């Protein structure tokens, strides 16, 4: 199954009842799958006038406590930022699949991971965070999409799945999770009509600085909880590694092959793959910095995650970078060459 379709199927199984979107390559297959499947399975699919409207419809559906999602790529994700910021401010759940393409501007439709900053560092206005998940296979894309709905609801926060067109377009077998039972219970914050209770308000506006600061403090406390509980990463060959390649998503796939080959050739190389980009596996990297000689951050961008790696490592060891831009996907051999170059530098 194709990655974008696997994410759509997983979303439906996670109880996503509403999908709102606007076509954009390379993720239209996700919307098309939803258009076929959701109406048959008791849900709503709507192709709307813009990505701005799509995210605001997700916001509206979330207001009632329903599970809803949208998906897009760079140019469309840029348009959604206003709505995402409002969702974060209003503490509303929602899932956004972001199939990253080459930019800036219209760029191209080739696989890229250059929207890390936008996804992880806010993108919209204000002090907020998305929870950002970065799958590296079709199976993982499905699993993370399934879990994204739980995370979004647990923390009442937007969850973004960030992947490149490689993951979205690739065909791999998928083992799906069981469909979720529709929850009967009403969410204690949802707007469902003030019957037998006081009216509820959903808002981000707080005119008094003291009040807005307190709201921000609460959001920050929530992000701290997320950082404490939800960090996920995968690692390989760290036991005796001197050089550790840090990569996520598609670049991690490429790096994994390169690292295996480097191992075959006798180089002491490991791989560290963040699965959650926010929360970033800061502590794990810091601990690792105590016992390795060097990190090589490998990205499909000019170097964005590398900043978070540097912050995590806090100067303990050298952090080097190699990346390709513009939708160019380097081969494992190219990555291997860079790894070997760094290994040799030290000897």
């Amino acid at each position, binding site marked *: 199954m194709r990655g974008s379709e696997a994410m759509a199927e997983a979303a439906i199984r996670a109880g996503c009842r509403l999908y709102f979107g606007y076509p954009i390559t390379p993720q239209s297959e996700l919307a098309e799958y939803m258009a076929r499947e959701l109406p048959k399975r008791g849900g709503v699919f709507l192709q709307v006038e813009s990505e701005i409207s799509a995210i*605001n419809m997700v*916001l509206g559906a979330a207001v009632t406590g329903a599970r809803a999602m949208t998906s897009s790529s760079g140019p469309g994700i840029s348009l959604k930022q206003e709505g995402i910021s409002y969702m974060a401010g209003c503490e509303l759940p929602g899932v956004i699949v972001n199939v990253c393409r080459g930019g800036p501007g219209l760029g191209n439709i080739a696989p890229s991971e250059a929207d890390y900053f936008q996804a992880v560092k806010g993108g919209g206005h204000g002090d907020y965070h998305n929870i950002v998940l970065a799958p590296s296979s079709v199976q993982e894309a499905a699993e993370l999409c399934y879990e994204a709905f739980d995370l979004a609801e647990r923390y009442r926060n937007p969850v973004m799945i960030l992947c490149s067109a490689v993951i979205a377009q690739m065909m791999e077998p998928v083992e799906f999770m069981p469909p979720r039972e529709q929850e009967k219970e009403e969410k204690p914050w949802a707007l469902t009509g003030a019957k037998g209770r006081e009216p509820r308000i959903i808002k981000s506006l707080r005119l008094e600085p003291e009040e807005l600061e307190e709201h921000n403090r609460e959001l920050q406390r929530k992000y701290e909880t997320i950082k404490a509980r939800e960090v996920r990463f995968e690692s390989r060959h760290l036991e005796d590694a001197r050089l550790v390649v840090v990569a996520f998503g598609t670049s991690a796939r490429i790096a994994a092959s390169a690292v295996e080959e480097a191992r075959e050739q006798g180089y002491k190389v490991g791989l560290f793959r963040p699965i959650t980009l926010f929360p970033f596996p800061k502590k794990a990297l810091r601990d690792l910095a105590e016992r390795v000689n060097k990190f090589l951050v490998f990205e499909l961008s000019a170097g964005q995650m590398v900043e978070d790696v540097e912050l995590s490592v806090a100067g303990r060891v050298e952090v080097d970078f190699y990346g390709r831009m513009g939708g160019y996907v380097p081969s494992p051999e190219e990555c291997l060459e860079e790894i070997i170059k760094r290994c040799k530098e030290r000897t």
Partner: protein
Amino acid sequence: MKLVFDRPKSMKDANMHYCPGCSHGVINRIVAEAIDVLDLRERTVCVAPVGCAVFLYDYMNFDVTEAPHGRPPAVATGIKRARPDLFVFTYQGDGDIAAIGLAEILSAANRGENFSVIYVNNTVYGMTGGQMAPTTLLGQRTTTTPYGRDAREGHPMRMAEWIASMEGPSYSVRVAVNNPANIVKTKKAVLEAFKMQLEGRGLSFVEILATCPISWGLTPVESLNRVEKELIPYYPLGVFKSVDTSKKG
């Protein structure tokens, strides 16, 4: 004019922040009364705008959500598509609906989304200090048209007629709240719009000509006169579309 009767069940006991002579207060009350009449309070979700009515949730005694500036029709679409059993309406100003939110309202209307729109046309951006709106009359001075609006800054937009030209909506009307007789008509129009939604007939749209004495630089009484003398001649009152043909005209 003064409205002295009991507070509708659908209103909270709160002081409104609107300026003296502002139509928002009257319109808030008309909406609350209509919701009481139709007994909808316990299944209402209102989408408040960014504009002077942003604090609607402090005055209304039912569930209210905020929406980004101009996006209430998209937010209302999400709510109504998720929960068709709820009664949903947006409350929007002319900047919100006719400028930044034009794509959202026209698309929702075209799809015939089954919610209602209360659109308050006061020909200016009240909240941000009286700048030009898409509805500002030609020649009208605002803080961003200090020499009067020129046609090259756009012609005043007639939303009710535009909405009426589409297949999706069930009802589109323009009313005013500048005198008791018009207030009674506005109440009727709001009730009619809400009934359309209850009957599942698609988007119902009520444009209400309103005052903004502060931005207009007029007294409350002069403002009411301006609605009569300047606004109504350009923005004619009436029903522009009703799927219930007996009510057209």
